[in-house]
């Protein structure tokens, strides 16, 4: 089973888990409707669209409402700690979440008790806390952008907010930051670095660069990184190896973005709508 974990930006949204249904511009999980605009709902929608195209079962989701005070996330950390040891998830993608090193480590201990170790993918808050706690190398794939890669590369920074200037400076090239992230064991087995060029790398170095089509206007659009994480997670869940899935996901996300004819004011659902034709183009042509 393929599961996605994250937050919904609503204070009153309860802890909910279930198979996702995509309906128009909303996702439905455990009979709760959630607008797809950015963040975890955008990742889930992209994953669901991809799984549907591939003829695979819709993903399972663990969601909780949290607007940043961490109250909802504490509930879901606890739920996962109890649920995971007896679960048979094959792919687990972790997304927007309140970084809390203590609770995260308990959850990770629960993952290690699972009968089969799942493929672990992290982005956003879960990627931050994995690095904060020194657990990055436990993961199979991280999907940082350039700013987040600089954070991974800074062995002293506990959050991107504290990334030191000499590392954050744009004179630092992505390849150097990738090398530094691995040097200090602050990267997952694979990195899919999203940006003007998408880099697929591992400890040995950069394996692939995907740089077309190139739509500059995608960078400011909230959710374009989330859709990439959703697509790559779904491709991995469908059976592709991480490197192949990363390369294809990068192409699919860029193509979907290009099909949407974006401006910096475009909203991410317009891009999600273009994922099926992008999947068709990349996987079948």
């Amino acid at each position: 089973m393929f599961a996605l974990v994250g937050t919904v930006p609503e204070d009153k949204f309860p802890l909910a888990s279930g198979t996702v249904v995509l309906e128009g511009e909303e996702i439905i999980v455990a009979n709760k409707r959630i607008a797809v605009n950015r963040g975890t709902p955008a990742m889930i929608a992209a994953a669901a669209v991809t799984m549907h195209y591939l003829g695979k079962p819709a993903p399972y989701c663990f969601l909780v409402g949290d607007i940043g005070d961490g109250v909802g996330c504490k509930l879901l950390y606890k739920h996962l700690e109890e649920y995971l040891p007896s679960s048979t998830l094959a792919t687990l993608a972790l997304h927007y979440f309140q970084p809390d090193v203590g609770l995260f480590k308990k959850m990770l201990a629960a993952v290690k008790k699972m009968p089969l170790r799942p493929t672990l993918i992290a982005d956003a808050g879960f990627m931050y806390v994995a690095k904060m706690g020194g657990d990055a190398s436990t993961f199979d794939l991280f999907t940082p952008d350039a700013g987040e890669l600089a954070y991974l590369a800074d062995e002293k920074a506990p959050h991107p907010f504290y990334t030191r200037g000499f590392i954050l400076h744009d004179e630092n090239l992505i390849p150097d930051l990738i090398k530094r992230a691995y040097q200090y064991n602050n990267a997952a087995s694979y990195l899919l670095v999203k940006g003007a060029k998408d880099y697929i790398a591992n400890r040995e170095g950069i394996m692939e660069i995907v740089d077309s089509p190139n739509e500059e206007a995608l960078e400011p659009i909230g959710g374009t990184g989330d859709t990439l994480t959703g697509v790559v997670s779904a491709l991995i869940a469908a059976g592709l190896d991480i490197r192949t899935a990363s390369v294809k996901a990068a192409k699919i996300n860029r193509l979907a973005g290009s099909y949407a004819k974006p401006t910096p004011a475009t909203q991410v659902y317009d891009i999600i709508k273009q994922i099926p034709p992008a999947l068709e183009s990349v996987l079948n042509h």
Partner: protein
Amino acid sequence: MFRSLGKKKAKPDTTVDRGILVFENTTDVIRAENVLKAEGWKVRVMGPPPEIRSGCDLVIEFPLIEELSMIRKLEENNIKPTQVVPVNSVLLEPVDLLHEKEYDQYLMVRAANMKITVDRDTKMIVNVSGGGCPDVPYLAGEMVNKHLDAAPLPRDIGYTLCAYALQIAYDRVVEKCSL
């Protein structure tokens, strides 16, 4: 292009006379910072030392000798630190580089991992992206499609370091749009 957030403040000569105020969340840190700076105290928002770091944290560094009066002032404003401890290790400096990019009439500013984009002609916020803490999608929902003058401020409704970074980016956008 990157721009520094202005001149670096002079670092204290020593840390032995400095303490840190620890709060429940970043919102309280920001409120406390505003109160204390308004009263003229020389305080700095910093990253906590490793021994009290739990996740998405900020602390306020302050002159220890003024602890009592500062705590009193914070209590007058219903702000209560969870811990007050002396500084005994090097504190982390918040990010001080901003990245700006223009797309025709649109201006995007990135601070650390947070990006905000405005239409310079209409001064409408058209997108907020980046970040990883759960208040980022919430802040985006509250701020996008609002005028710069009408949007709620990240420091008022956010909780985390991502919100603090977004506030820095927002301040730069306001500065650039008023030129």
